[in-house]
């Protein structure tokens, strides 16, 4: 499947932006005083989770719109955004784990933010599975929308619970990257990479939505043909 013109433009822009951001982060920015070179993984880690938040917020909004207007285009946006969000959450967990191994000495620890990200990941993987197991496309869209809305209300409560769980009974062992004030040399690559990943998200969305629309049309065609003959 070839790309659409807007997809091609987005792809080039995202590639350039991420290349510049990574160059600034991996080469230009100074290594962290306490954590050394491994801290540079932050330039991918932080923009990834921010992009995932953007993606899941888009899924929520598109789900509300779908239940309200019953427009299959809204559903295409919701499912595409959830898929891309899951990928970026996965990248966040993987890069965080690598960073944790070298900084904390363990691949995983039940720190509040890690736990919350893992919960987020499981909720949206569940969302994708739910859609895959639905017997008809309309049901997949409706159930998916309901679950996305439930998940959205659930996240603040999860946040609260996990925060209390980790801070009230056990002193936090988080090494805070960056410290209270973040230097411009560190901030610029972060922002450039975030812009790059947002462009990448937009590119994936354009292509994935196009694919989903084709799938919807193909299913509709098959249904009308089945009815006629």
């Amino acid at each position, binding site marked *: 499947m070839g790309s659409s013109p807007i997809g091609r433009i987005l792809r080039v822009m995202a590639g350039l932006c991420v290349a510049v951001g990574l160059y600034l982060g991996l080469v230009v920015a100074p290594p962290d005083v306490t954590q050394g070179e491994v801290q540079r993984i932050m330039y991918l880690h932080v923009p990834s989770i921010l992009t995932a938040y953007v993606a899941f917020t888009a899924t929520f909004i598109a789900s509300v719109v779908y239940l309200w207007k019953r427009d299959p285009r809204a559903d295409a946006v919701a499912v595409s955004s959830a898929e891309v969000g899951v990928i970026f959450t996965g990248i966040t967990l993987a890069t965080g784990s690598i960073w944790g191994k070298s900084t904390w000495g363990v691949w995983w620890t039940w720190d509040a933010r890690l736990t919350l990200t893992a919960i987020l990941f*499981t909720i949206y993987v569940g969302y994708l*599975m*739910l859609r895959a197991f639905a*017997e008809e496309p309309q049901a997949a869209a*409706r*159930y998916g929308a309901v679950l996305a809305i439930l998940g959205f*209300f*659930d996240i603040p409560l999860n946040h609260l619970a996990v925060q209390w769980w980790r801070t009230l009974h056990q002193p936090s062992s988080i090494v805070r990257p960056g410290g209270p004030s973040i230097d411009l040399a560190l901030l610029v690559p972060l922002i450039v990479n975030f812009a790059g990943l947002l462009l990448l998200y937009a590119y994936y969305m354009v292509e994935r939505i196009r694919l989903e629309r084709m799938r919807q049309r193909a299913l509709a065609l098959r249904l009308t043909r089945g009815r006629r003959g």
Partner: protein
Amino acid sequence: MVVAEVMRRTWAMTWKDVRVELRARERMNAMLFFAALILFIFNFALGPDLSKLREAAPGLLWLAFLFTGMLGLGRSFQAERENECFEELLLTPGDRESLYFGKLAGNILFMVMAEMLILPLFAILYNLEIWHALPGLLLVAFLGTVGFSTIGTLLAAMTAHLRAREVMLPLLLFPLTVPVILGSVKATEALLSGAGLAEASHWVKLLAGFDVVFLVVCPLAFEFVLEE
């Protein structure tokens, strides 16, 4: 008047489920036997060391509650699905909310009944002192059960129409109910350690808050799940 009408319909729905259960006794029997088995298995998982078991007691207790509850939730739309009478359910006059609340009340009732057996059995089998904290424990058990069942009832209605429904219900329900699980386990831990309800108050508030949020959101969402 409207409230009385909704209450009446809700009660009709709950009473239908309770009556089916009284006659067939499928769900309760399965839940109680499963609960007894799970308490039995904890012993093999952790060994005969009672102090270790007692330390893990709050978590184990809630594992028994939640797994048993999950079994009940999975059955809650089974009768309608097997006899293909979801449509008849939808034809019931009045709004869908009373259907949801009716199913929810039944699910809470069955889960609470199972818990009322698990709790003393757990205390006896593992020689646990729970009686001093009983009022607090009952409150936490009730709030946790309501939270688990509000989302659970909605998801049970949803997964009833899926392929692989037995698998999908826990996969969706557990991540969404992490606040309930954490809140219940932590509050139970505080109560069992003899700290009293004041120590657990912020967890109890979290549970109550969770219940309120999803008692509002789930009935609204239920309309979209049931439409054909």
